[in-house]
């Protein structure tokens, strides 16, 4: 149960933190249609995060931070707003600032392709809740991936500037790619039980898809070093980037000012 809870936090925190980043585009996107689409994707991921955090709390109540007596804060909110940085288990991939629209599209393409590959496998999870969450998520993530893919090709074949920005974006985002496929012991354990997915098993499929988009765009994978671990740990172990603390300061500020608040 502890392992299942930790696993749900991993998938849930990925969605929560990335949703936070995408939601920062609200009122800032290049056009109204993009404002709507990015908000939509952020909403889908927020929905996934809520289901997964609730599943984590149900699987093992000990992951939920203790709240003051009588606090009406539900488990999903205690997890989102009252955990400290090292207790978050998301990949570092989702943490950095949005950058420009090209960086956002590159990141979204990789993230949605990766997560879709995981969720397709998770539909067969032995945990019926995870399986149901994955089933719902597959449709959403397919849309996210296709949206990012269309824009990727558009920017690649658009103007000289858009292509050049896309290339810089690829170079900037790619060092974070490898961590997505680095198996964590918990992922391996749950994959062995038919409950979770080992991301290493999805790596080949994701790479084929990404290579297709690159090839259509006449671009190569950038040759940059992968972002290394810290003390041999990564985001899944609670070791994050410097962006994470700033993000959490905003995410949690109101909730923490009112630990007994009702919203």
């Amino acid at each position, binding site marked *: 149960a502890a392992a299942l809870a930790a696993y749900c936090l991993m998938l849930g925190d990925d969605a929560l933190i990335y949703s936070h980043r995408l939601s920062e585009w609200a009122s800032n996107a290049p056009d109204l249609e993009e404002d709507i689409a990015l908000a939509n994707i952020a909403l889908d991921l927020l929905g996934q995060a809520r289901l997964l955090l609730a599943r984590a709390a149900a699987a093992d109540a000990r992951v939920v931070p203790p709240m003051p007596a009588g606090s009406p804060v539900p488990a999903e*909110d205690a997890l989102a707003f009252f955990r400290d940085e090292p207790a978050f288990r998301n990949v570092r991939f989702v943490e950095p600032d949005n950058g420009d629209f090209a960086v956002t599209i590159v990141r979204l393409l990789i993230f949605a392709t990766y997560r879709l590959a995981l969720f397709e496998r998770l539909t067969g999870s032995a945990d019926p809740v995870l399986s149901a969450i994955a089933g719902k998520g597959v449709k959403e993530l397919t849309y996210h991936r296709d949206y990012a893919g269309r824009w990727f090709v558009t920017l690649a074949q658009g*103007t000289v500037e*858009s292509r050049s920005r896309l290339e810089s974006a690829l170079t900037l985002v790619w060092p974070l790619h490898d961590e997505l496929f680095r198996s964590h012991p918990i992922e391996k354990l749950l994959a062995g039980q038919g409950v979770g997915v080992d991301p290493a098993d999805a790596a080949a499929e994701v790479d084929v898809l990404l290579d297709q988009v690159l090839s259509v765009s006449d671009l190569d994978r950038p040759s940059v070093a992968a972002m290394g671990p810290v003390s041999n740990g990564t985001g899944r172990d609670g070791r994050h980037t410097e962006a994470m603390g700033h993000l959490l300061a905003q995410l949690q500020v109101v909730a923490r000012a009112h630990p007994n608040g009702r*919203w």
Partner: protein
Amino acid sequence: MTASPPICADDERDLLGRFDRVIAHNDRIEPRDWMPDKYRATLVRQIAQHAHSEIIGMQPEGNWITRAPSLRRKAILLAKVQDEAGHGLYLYSACETLGVSRGELTAKLIAGQQKYSSIFNYPTLSYADVGTIGWLVDGAAICNQVPLCRTSYGPYGRAMIRICKEESFHQRQGYELLSTMMRGTEAQRAMVQESVDRFWWPALMMFGPPDADSPNTTQSMAWGIKRDTNDELRQKFVDMSVPQAAALGVTLPDPQLTWNPERGHHDFGQPNWDEFTTVVKGGGPCNAQRVAHRKRAHDEGAWVREAATAFAARNQERSS
């Protein structure tokens, strides 16, 4: 804007007669119908202002998305801000049926040549403001907009039907947030009261100046673009809000507010109309910030829109 082609005086009289009959029967004018130039210009001004209000209105609420204190509220707020972008889209489309493009309208907004609702020139300073905007600001907007569902220009009226449906949903959500907070801690109740104190008077100003100072009202009503006077709508809003405030447990910051059994309405104080004039002229607390934000987003997005245009043009070439 596409001007009507030149026509001779007799034709114009016939067309005007037909136009007047449509208006008199409360029927709709449609994009291909003839319409007086001033009617068109008034509509463009009003619809554009309304569209701009939706888009600028994303900022004060968007300001709290990353800090929403519960995941449920975050989802509600994000969806609401997304809806506002959608409303902006419908309304710009309605304007395009009158021959003005979204790009032209955005350029005018950024250059300060077209207005948006003055309410969005006030800052959001606490999460309670998200609720208050839903309750009072969307509430006032609905009072203004429900009559517009019957407005004489077809595309505008139909857009308003859809928008009003979503706005009342938003209003209920805002009210529900405040009512939940009022059942929370003392600090939360104080936050709600402080927010209502700040937004009450600006909300009353949303109906525009008193009828005596509103020179365009008569013509707009004659054309069926507007259906009620500013003061009528304001009274309706006050009468609607008083019992809601009582149910919430907040005090509206107007010592003159009392039920007048003779009129069958509430008497109430006047907002500071000098402040209203100042804000409309650009001197509100957030005018400069709101327009600068929109300009920055628009400028920073230029290369993306250009890429999309270039890509589409290239693909059209290939396929033709």
